[in-house]
C-alpha cells in the first residue's frame, strides 16, 4: 500500500481535482434520477453513466477518474489497517489532500468509501464498529481455509490489480457495509448553495422512500465486484476443468479414437440386469419396502415402472423371436448363424483377452494354431471337391480315386513334414505280437521294415511292462508306475500322439545299443569283418540266419532316404566304405581317405568273393550300385584313359572354371588363353580407362574460368602501366579426394548424377522431426499390402478417428463423476 501512495503522490492535486469534477458530475446525475429509481440504482449505477458520458468527451479524463476511484478504495483499506493500530492516526497523504478542499465532500454520496475515509469525525464515532468489523475479519480469515484466500501473486496471475488489496476478503470487510451514509453526514460538510439545493431534493427523496425500504448496504465498485467474482469463478471452473485433464490427455495421446468412446453395452447390460432384478420382485413387497425406504417421488416411481414395463416387453419379444428362430429348419440358415455366433464368441474372447495381460500372445498363439490346423486340413477329405467325389460316387472311377488317394497321401506327407520326423509313426494299430521269437522269425515283407519292427518292439515292451505291473500289483507295489514312465524311452505328451524327447531318444538308443551289444558280444574283436559279412548276408536276402536285429539295423537306411542319416547313419559309417570297395575295380581311394577306410579296403579284398556272390543274388539295391559303377567307368573312358584310378580327371577341372595355379592346365587350354591374350594385346583398356577417369575427375572438380574482357588493359606504348592481373573466376566442383570412387580401382562414379529427382525429395526436414534421420526412419516401413501382411496394413492405415456408423456420438460424460 505504501508504494501505491508514493507513486500517486506525485500528482495528488490533479487527482483530487479530477475527483472533484467527477463528484460534481455525479451529483448532477443524482439530481436527475427519477423518483421511481430505487436506492440501489442511485448508489450503484451512476458509475456507468459517467463512463458513458466521459467517453464522448475525454478519454484521459475517464482514466484518471477510474484511477481516483481505485485509489480511493485503496485508501479505505489503508484506513482500515490504520484502525488496527490506534496510535497510528495519521491519514495518508492522498486523503489529506482531499480534505483540504472541503467542497469535495459534497460528492461522497456516491463514493461511500471515499467518504468514509475523508471524515475523521466519523472515524472516531464509529471506531467500535470498525473494531467489530476488524474482529470479524480476523475471525473469518482464521476460519477460511488457506486456498480460499487469493494472494497477490494469484491476483497478478489473474490480471487483477494487485496494488490496492492484499486480499479480496479484506476488501470485502473494509467495505463499510455497516456505515450507512445519511443525508446528515453530507449536510455537515456542505456549504455551497448548489449543494444545499441538491440536498434538499435528496431530503425529499428520502422522506418519500423512508417508509418503503431500508437503506441497502453499499457495494464495492461494480467493476471490482465483477472482477472478484470472476476470479472466484475462475478458480472453481479451473478445478472443475482440471478433472478432465487425464481424459483429454489420454484421448490426445491415443493412436486411434473409436467413437462412441465409452462403450455403452456395459452400462446397458447393467441397466438391464438391474431392471430384471427389480422385475422379479415387481409387485412384491420388497419393492414397496425399497420405495418406502428411499422415499421415491411419484414421478420416479412412474418412471421406474415404465422402464420395467419396457424391459418386460423386450424380454417377451426376444422370447417370441427365439421361438420363431427355433422353428426354422433351414440348414443354410443354421450354418450362417453358427458362423456368426462363433465369430461373436471369438470377439468376446478377444475382448476378454484384451482386458487380461496375455492378450497378444494368446491371440497370436491362437492364430498360429489355426494356421496349423488349416495347413493340415488342406489335403484332407474335407475339401469341396473331395466331398463331391464322395457324394456323387465318383470314387468308383479309377482316375478320380487315384487322385483322391494321391491327395490324401500328400496330406499325410505334409503333416509328417510339419511334424519334422518321418519315423514317428505310432504303432498303435499294429497287431500285437507277444512272443519275441515268433516276431523275429516271421519278419518278412513289410514286417521286415524298420518302423514296423520298432513298433513291435515298443508293443512288446509295453506288454511286458503291463505284465510286470500286474505282477507288482499282485505283490502290492503299484506306487512306482510313474517313475517307470519317465524312465522309459517313450514319453507321452498327450494322448494319441507319441514323441521322443531328446533325452528319451538317447536313452532309447542306449537301450537299443545295449541290446545290440548283447547280441554282438561275441563279435566284438572283429567288428569290421563282421560288418562286411553282415552286409553281404543282408544283400543275400531274407533267407539268412544271422541275428535279425543286426540285419534290420543295417537294412533300414535304404528304405529311409536321406533323413534318417542325420542321427546315427549306418550308411555313412558302414556301407559307404563298402561301396567304395565295390567300385574298386575302377576307383582308388583318395589321399584323404582315413586309415580306417584303408584297412577296410584291405578287408574288402579278402571279402571279394563273398560280394561277388551277393551280386549274383542281385536284388534291386545291388543293381543300382552296379549302375553307378558303369557310369563311372564310362566317364573314365571318355575322360582320360591313362589317368587310371584318379577320379577327378582333366575334363572335370576343365568344367570347374576355377584357377588352380596352372598346375593342371593342359597345353590346349594354355594355348587358348594365350590366344585370347594375343587377341586383346592391342587395346590397353586399363590405361584408357584410367585416362578417362582422370578426365572425369578434372571435369567434375574445381574449375577456373578466365573472365578477363578481351582487349581490356592491353594498351601498349610509352607510360602505360602494366595491365592488371587476369580476372579468374573459380567454379567449385567436387574435390578429387571426396569423390565416391576415390579409393575404387577401375570404377568411375558420376558425381553429377540424378539431377531430375529433386521433385521426389523433400527440401527440408518436415515439422515434427528434428533430424533427417528421424524423418527418414519414419519412411522406412512401406505401408502397401505388397510389403506387409494384411493385419499390418490395416493397422498402419487405420484412421485416427473412427466413428461407428449409425451411432449417436454422445459428448464425453465425466468418468470421475460416476
Amino acid at each position, binding site marked *: 500500500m505504501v508504494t501505491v501512495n508514493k507513486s500517486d503522490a506525485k500528482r495528488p492535486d490533479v487527482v483530487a481535482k479530477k475527483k472533484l469534477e467527477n463528484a460534481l458530475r455525479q451529483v448532477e446525475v443524482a439530481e436527475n434520477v427519477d423518483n421511481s429509481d430505487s436506492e440501489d440504482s442511485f448508489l450503484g449505477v451512476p458509475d456507468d453513466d459517467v463512463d458513458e458520458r466521459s467517453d464522448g468527451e475525454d478519454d484521459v479524463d475517464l482514466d484518471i477518474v477510474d484511477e481516483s476511484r481505485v485509489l480511493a478504495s485503496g485508501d479505505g483499506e489503508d484506513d482500515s489497517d490504520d484502525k488496527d493500530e490506534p496510535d497510528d492516526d495519521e491519514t495518508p497523504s492522498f486523503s489529506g489532500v482531499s480534505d483540504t478542499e472541503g467542497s469535495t465532500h459534497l460528492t461522497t454520496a456516491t463514493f461511500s468509501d471515499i467518504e468514509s475515509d475523508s471524515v475523521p469525525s466519523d472515524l472516531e464515532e464509529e471506531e467500535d464498529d470498525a473494531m467489530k468489523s476488524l474482529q470479524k475479519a480476523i475471525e473469518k480469515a482464521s476460519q477460511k481455509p488457506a486456498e480460499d484466500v487469493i494472494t497477490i501473486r494469484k491476483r497478478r496471475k489473474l490480471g487483477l490489480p494487485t496494488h490496492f488489496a492484499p486480499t479480496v476478503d479484506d476488501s470485502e470487510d473494509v467495505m463499510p457495509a455497516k456505515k450507512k451514509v445519511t443525508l446528515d453526514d453530507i449536510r455537515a460538510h456542505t456549504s455551497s448553495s448548489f449543494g444545499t439545493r441538491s440536498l434538499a431534493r435528496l431530503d425529499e427523496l428520502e422522506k418519500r422512500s423512508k417508509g418503503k425500504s431500508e437503506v441497502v448496504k453499499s457495494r464495492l465498485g461494480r467493476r471490482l465486484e465483477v472482477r472478484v467474482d470472476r476470479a472466484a469463478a475462475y478458480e472453481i471452473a479451473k478445478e472443475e476443468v482440471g478433472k478432465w485433464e487425464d481424459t483429454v490427455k489420454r484421448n490426445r495421446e491415443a493412436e486411434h479414437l473409436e467413437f462412441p468412446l465409452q462403450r455403452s453395452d456395459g452400462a446397458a447390460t447393467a441397466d438391464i440386469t438391474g431392471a430384471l432384478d427389480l422385475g422379479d420382485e415387481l409387485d412384491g413387497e420388497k419393492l414397496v419396502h425399497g420405495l418406502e425406504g428411499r422415499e421415491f417421488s411419484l414421478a420416479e416411481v412412474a418412471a421406474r415402472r415404465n422402464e420395467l414395463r419396457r424391459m418386460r416387453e423386450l424380454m417377451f419379444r426376444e422370447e417370441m423371436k427365439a421361438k420363431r428362430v427355433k422353428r426354422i429348419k433351414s440348414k443354410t440358415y443354421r450354418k450362417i448363424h453358427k458362423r456368426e455366433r462363433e465369430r461373436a464368441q471369438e470377439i468376446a474372447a478377444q475382448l476378454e483377452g484384451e482386458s487380461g495381460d496375455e492378450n497378444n500372445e494368446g491371440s497370436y498363439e491362437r492364430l*498360429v494354431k489355426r*494356421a496349423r490346423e488349416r*495347413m493340415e486340413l488342406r489335403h484332407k477329405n474335407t475339401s469341396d471337391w473331395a466331398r463331391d467325389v464322395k457324394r456323387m460316387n465318383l470314387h468308383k472311377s479309377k482316375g478320380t480315386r487315384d487322385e483322391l488317394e494321391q491327395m490324401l497321401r500328400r496330406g499325410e506327407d505334409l503333416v509328417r*513334414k510339419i511334424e519334422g520326423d518321418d519315423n514317428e509313426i505310432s504303432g498303435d494299430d499294429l497287431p500285437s505280437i507277444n512272443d519275441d521269437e515268433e516276431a523275429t522269425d516271421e519278419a518278412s515283407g513289410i514286417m521286415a521294415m524298420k518302423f514296423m519292427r520298432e513298433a513291435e518292439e515298443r508293443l512288446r515292451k509295453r506288454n511286458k511292462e503291463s505284465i510286470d505291473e500286474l505282477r507288482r500289483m499282485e505283490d502290492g507295489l503299484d506306487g512306482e508306475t510313474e517313475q517307470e514312465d519317465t524312465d522309459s524311452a517313450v514319453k507321452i505328451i498327450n494322448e494319441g500322439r507319441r514323441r521322443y524327447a531328446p533325452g528319451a531318444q538317447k536313452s532309447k538308443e542306449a537301450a537299443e545299443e545295449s541290446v545290440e551289444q548283447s547280441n554282438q558280444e561275441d563279435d566284438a574283436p572283429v567288428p569290421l569283418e563282421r560288418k562286411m559279412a553282415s552286409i553281404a548276408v543282408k544283400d543275400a536276402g531274407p533267407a539268412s540266419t544271422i541275428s535279425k536285429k543286426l540285419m534290420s539295423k543295417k537294412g533300414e537306411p535304404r528304405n529311409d*532316404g*536321406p533323413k534318417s542319416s542325420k542321427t546315427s547313419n549306418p*550308411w555313412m559309417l558302414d556301407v*559307404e566304405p563298402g561301396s*567304395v570297395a565295390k567300385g574298386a575295380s575302377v576307383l582308388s581311394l583318395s589321399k584323404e581317405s582315413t586309415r580306417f577306410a584303408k584297412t577296410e579296403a584291405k578287408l574288402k579284398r579278402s571279402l571279394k568273393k563273398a560280394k561277388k556272390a551277393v551280386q549274383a543274388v542281385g536284388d534291386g539295391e545291388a543293381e*543300382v550300385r552296379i549302375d553307378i559303377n558303369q*557310369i563311372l567307368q564310362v*566317364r573314365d573312358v571318355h575322360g582320360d584313359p591313362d589317368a587310371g584310378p584318379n*577320379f577327378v580327371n582333366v575334363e*572335370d577341372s576343365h*568344367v*570347374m*572354371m*576355377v*584357377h588352380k595355379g596352372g598346375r593342371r592346365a593342359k597345353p590346349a*587350354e594354355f594355348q587358348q*588363353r594365350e590366344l585370347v591374350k594375343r*587377341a*586383346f594385346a592391342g587395346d590397353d*583398356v*586399363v590405361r584408357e*580407362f584410367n585416362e578417362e577417369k582422370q578426365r572425369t575427375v578434372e571435369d567434375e572438380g574445381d574449375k577456373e574460368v578466365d573472365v578477363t574482357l578481351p582487349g581490356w588493359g592491353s594498351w601498349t606504348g610509352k607510360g602505360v602501366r602494366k595491365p592488371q592481373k587476369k580476372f579468374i573466376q573459380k567454379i567449385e566442383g567436387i574435390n578429387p579426394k571426396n569423390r565416391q*570412387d576415390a579409393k*575404387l580401382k577401375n*570404377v*568411375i*562414379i*558420376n558425381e553429377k*548424377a*540424378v*539431377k*531430375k*529427382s529433386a521433385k*521426389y*525429395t*523433400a*527440401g527440408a526436414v518436415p515439422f*515434427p*522431426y*528434428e533430424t*533427417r*534421420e*528421424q*524423418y*527418414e*526412419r519414419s*519412411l*522406412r*516401413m512401406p505401408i502397401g499390402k*505388397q*510389403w*506387409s501382411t494384411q*493385419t*499390418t496394413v490395416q*493397422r*498402419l492405415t487405420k484412421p485416427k478417428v473412427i466413428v461407428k456408423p449409425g451411432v449417436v456420438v454422445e459428448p464425453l460424460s465425466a468418468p470421475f463423476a460416476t
Partner: protein
Amino acid sequence: MSAVETPERIGHTGAGTTNAGLDIYGSIYSRTMTNKNVRIKDRKLRANVKRTDQRYKDAIRAAKSTELLLQEDAGFLEAEGMEKTYKFTQDELLKHVDVTTAHKGFELKLEHFGPYEIDYMRNGRKLLLGGRKGHVAAFDFREGTLDTELHVNETIRDVKYLHNDQYFAIAQKKYVYIYDKSGTEIHCLKKHIEVTNMEFLPYHFLLATVGNAGWLKYQDVSTGESVCEFRTKMGPTTSMTLNPYNAIIHLGHTNGTVSLWAPSTSTALVRILSHKGPVRAISVDRGGRYMATAGADCQLKIWDVRMYKEVHAYYTPTPPTSLDISDRGLLAVSWGPHVTIWKDAFRTKQKSPYMTHLSPGSTVNDVRFCPFDDLLGFGHDEGFTSLIVPGAGEPNFDALEINPYETLQQRREAEVHGLLNKLKPEMIALDPNFIGNVDPRAPDERKQALVLETTGETDKKINDADAKLQPKAKMRGKNSALRRYLRKKSKNVIDERKLRVEAALEREKGMRQNNLKRRKGLPVEERKLGPALARFGKSK
C-alpha cells in the same frame, strides 16, 4: 545315390528358405537404417518416433510369422560320399523327379533357324523363342499350347516379353517390332535401329534397347512415347541386363567396361572396367547385390554392385556367351556347348560347379532361368533345351505380385493395376529408396534443379545476382470491398446501392488521380465551391 531331396519339391510348389533362427533385424524383411538412438528432447516427437519404431518391429515380426504359411522348402541336389552333384546328368535326374517335373525337361529340335534367343514371361508360364534366321514362337511349355509361330524373314537379334503374354517385342534386322499374342505386328519402333539387346522394365512400362550404334533408348510402351535417348559413346554394346532391384540398366561394352544407366541422367551413373576384352554377358541377382560379368577374355567376374568391388573371378575355357542368375542365386554360364551352373558362387568362391550340361555339337546362345520353376532354358544352334535344375526357382510366389496361375480376369486386373501404379522414369536411381528423403543439396542448388526440371531448360543457369536486381512487379490495392461488391453483383441489375458504389469508386479514382498530379507537380483541378456549397453548384 543321388538324392533330390524330395521329388515334389522340385517344381514351383517346391522351396523357400525359412530362416527360423534369425532375429528380426537380420531377416530379409528388415530395412536396415542407421539406428542412432539419440535422445529426443521433444516428448511428443519422442513418443511418435518410438511408436513408429514399434510399428516397424511389429510389421517385420508379422511378415516373418507368415513364413509359417510357406510350406515349401528349397531343395538342392545332394551328393553322397564320393558323388559330385555336377556329375549328375539330366537323364539320371529325370528318373528321380516326379512326372510333371520330368515333362518340363525337354528339348526342341529346331535346326534350321538357330541359334535361338529366348525369353520367359515374368511369371514363368510362357516361353518366347526367336531364331537368328527369323523364326519366332511363343508358347506355354507346360501345357504345350502354342500362342503363335511366325517367320519374320529377317535377322532376329533379341526377343522380349512385355508386361504380360499379350505382347512381345522383337529386335529385327533394322527396327524393333512389337507383336501381339497372336503374332500380329502392332508397332514398328523406327527410332530403335539395329538393336542387339532389349530389356523391359515392368514397373515403369519401359522398353530399353541398345544396339550397334551405341544408343540407349527408353520407350514407354503404355503411352508409346520415347522417354529418352542417350549416346553411350562407347561403340557397339555387346550385352545388357536389368538390375531387378533398382531398374538400372547395365550395359557391357567392347572396351571391357560395364556402364550403369538410368533415364534421369544422360551420362552413365557408374562405369566399371571389368574385362580386358568385350563384355559378353552380364547378369544381376534379384536383390541387386551381385553382378556377374563375362568377358571375351575368358573371365567370369563377380562384382558387389553396391560397393563396386570385385568379389571373385572365375575363368572359362572358352569365352562365355551368356549368363543368368536365378531367383535363388544359382548362376548359369554358357560357354561353347557347355552350360555350367554354380551354387553360392557370390559369397564364397566355389571350387566346383553345382551342375554341368553339355549339348554336343551346338553352341549355346542364350541361357535363362525360368521364374518360379526349377528350370533352366537355353537356346542353342539347334533349338531349345530345358534343363531341370533343382533349387533354381523361387518356390513361394506372391500371387498379388506375379501369379503363375493367373486367370484371364486376374491378368487383366494385374495389367490395370500395373498401369495405375506405373512408376515415373525419373524415379529410377541407384538407391531406389531415395523418394521422400531429404535432399542433401543446398536449398538454392535444389531450387535451381527444380526450376530446370519444370522448365525443361537444361543449360540456363540462374544467376543469383541477376535475380536480385530484378524489380519485383507488385500490383497492390487492386481489390477493394467496393470492387468486390461490383464484381459479385450481377451485371444487368442496377440498384441504388450499385449506383452509390459506382459513384464512390469514381470519386476515389478522381482523388487518386489528383493525388498523382499533385505529386508530379501538375496543376490540379480544384473544386471552387468547396464541399459545402458544391451540392448547390452545377451538377455533372
